[in-house]
């Protein structure tokens, strides 16, 4: 028994070594994506039949702007076992995928790529190109990139619309170096997070938000089932803090994909 395992792992190691030594000649034919954001880019770029499975989150209409498209794929819940059984030749995960799962898949000889989340528009361009290269669909990626640049140029507004605050559950705000911050900036707003030197996503006490006197407050829609974390979004002080309040932070704000232009437009 033990010998058998050892032999198979030896063979596996050999196979991996050979695969690594050979140049990548053909595009992967059995691709599994296990991250909500890579799911969307993969669905936009993959050739018919090339993408086998997307994460189950991609099929959730509350989270995914492409839930309808995702319904055509096999959902996966991100466990190494189920993904291995799909016999993929490329797995696209995220940087937040549990490392144990990733190393398990790699030990099993599967090629695993973990593109980082895109936190600004340049990064989205990079990720479109990267996804095109991974799938062997460079041409499709160039088209998508061109469309995105055009959309973005059309959606971007000059920076004279005043000050806005992003606020979400547990009193978190998004700074200038986040995707949400970039969306806000593209829509023509100054982010009040900059007043307090917040560049990333960080907690901002309610009273500091009120003291910043934003012209517009941008929050998200609440999840079903209540939570105390979201209760801060209905605090009376928040209602009094800004003249305009919009609850538009939703699925278009989550991932760095060409769909962020919809998020920019939602602030019109």
């Amino acid at each position, binding site marked *: 028994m033990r010998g058998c395992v050892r032999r198979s792992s030896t063979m596996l190691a050999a196979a991996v070594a050979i695969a690594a030594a050979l140049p990548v000649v053909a595009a992967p034919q059995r691709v599994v994506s296990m991250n909500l954001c890579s799911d969307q880019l993969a669905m936009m770029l993959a050739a018919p039949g090339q993408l086998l499975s997307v994460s189950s989150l991609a099929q959730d209409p509350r989270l995914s702007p492409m839930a309808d498209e995702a319904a055509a794929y096999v959902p996966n819940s991100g466990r190494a076992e189920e993904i291995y059984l799909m016999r993929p030749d490329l797995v696209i995960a995220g940087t937040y995928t549990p490392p144990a799962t990733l190393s398990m898949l790699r030990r099993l000889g599967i090629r695993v790529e973990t593109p980082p989340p895109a936190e600004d528009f340049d990064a989205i361009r990079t990720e479109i190109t990267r996804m095109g290269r991974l799938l062997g669909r460079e041409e499709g990626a160039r088209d998508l990139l061109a469309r995105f640049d055009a959309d973005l140029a059309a959606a971007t507004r000059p920076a004279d619309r005043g000050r806005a605050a992003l606020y979400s559950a547990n009193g978190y705000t998004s700074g200038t170096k986040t995707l949400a911050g970039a969306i806000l900036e593209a829509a023509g707003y100054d982010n009040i997070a900059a007043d307090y030197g917040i560049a990333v996503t960080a907690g901002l006490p309610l009273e500091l938000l009120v003291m910043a006197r934003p012209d517009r407050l941008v929050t998200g829609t609440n999840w*079903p089932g209540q939570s105390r974390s979201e209760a801060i979004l209905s605090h009376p002080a928040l209602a009094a803090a800004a003249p305009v309040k919009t609850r538009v932070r939703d699925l278009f704000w989550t991932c760095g994909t060409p769909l962020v232009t919809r998020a920019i437009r939602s602030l019109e």
Partner: protein
Amino acid sequence: MKALFIALSLLVAVLFATSLLTGPAGLPVVQSLLDLVFGGDGPVPIVMREIRLPRAILGLAVGAGLGLTGAALQGYLRNPLAEPGLLGISGMAAFGAVLAIQTGLSLVAVLALPLAALLGAAAGVGLLVVLAGPRGGSVTLILAGVAISALAGAGTALVLNLSPNPYAANEIIFWLMGSLADRSMLHVWLALPPMILGAGLILSTQRALDALTLGEAAAQALGLAGPSLRWRLVAGTALIVGPATAVAGAIGFVGLVVPHVLRPWIGARPSVLLPASALGGAALLLAADIGVRLIVPDRDLKLGVLTAIVGAPLFLHLIWRTRSGGRV
């Protein structure tokens, strides 16, 4: 004794004002107090009236309520280890509140939240009084408290984990440790009226608690330890601990530490200990709430962390004293 009450009242007043003046915005003292009273334009009145005022009022009320119920439970059970947090009454209240929130009842009727917490607290204190009775010893009391706490904690965790809301599961810590961050005047109006009613009921037991110093039979013979005492105590505790937990989470040890510290100062009389513990509890919780804002200003450190750091060693000390047969 009068001097003690004056000192405690002054302490509470100073801490209340300090609580109003503590916050990340670092507002000017005079201006912020003027804006609090007279209002005005700009963000300062909003910060003072909508954010800091409810927090300070709740700190005062929840602390006073916990101190009062701690002293009353100790007097009734004649045991210095009794306390709503440790005995699982707060935990049961939190369980009730979580049920009201996750079933959506609190969206249908805003009063459902304090009411459900109140029912939870009533179930907890009722169970406790039946299990550990006025005749129950320390061991029965603590074991009953452990069992009720465990049950309530498990129920709370289960309900929050079953919630469709992704934030709910992380809120177990709030319900177990308590916090006053970002509460609004709505929470004050939800919690305060039942708490005042409960305080009235508890304060009506003063003479009976004094009589219980002589034991249950003697108190009964003095005409004071009938079923109505038990009823008033259970209802009063539930009316205070339920709504307090619904808006601030379960905060332990306040009701244990405060009566213990104040008892020698007021000659150990349970009737005098009640108002003294209410003042002491208010001071302790206001101080703890100022503390959490000063220690880690940008994070929501839970109140129960500070009260446990003060209270748990004292609790161990009390158990040690009980174990070695000494009177506390």
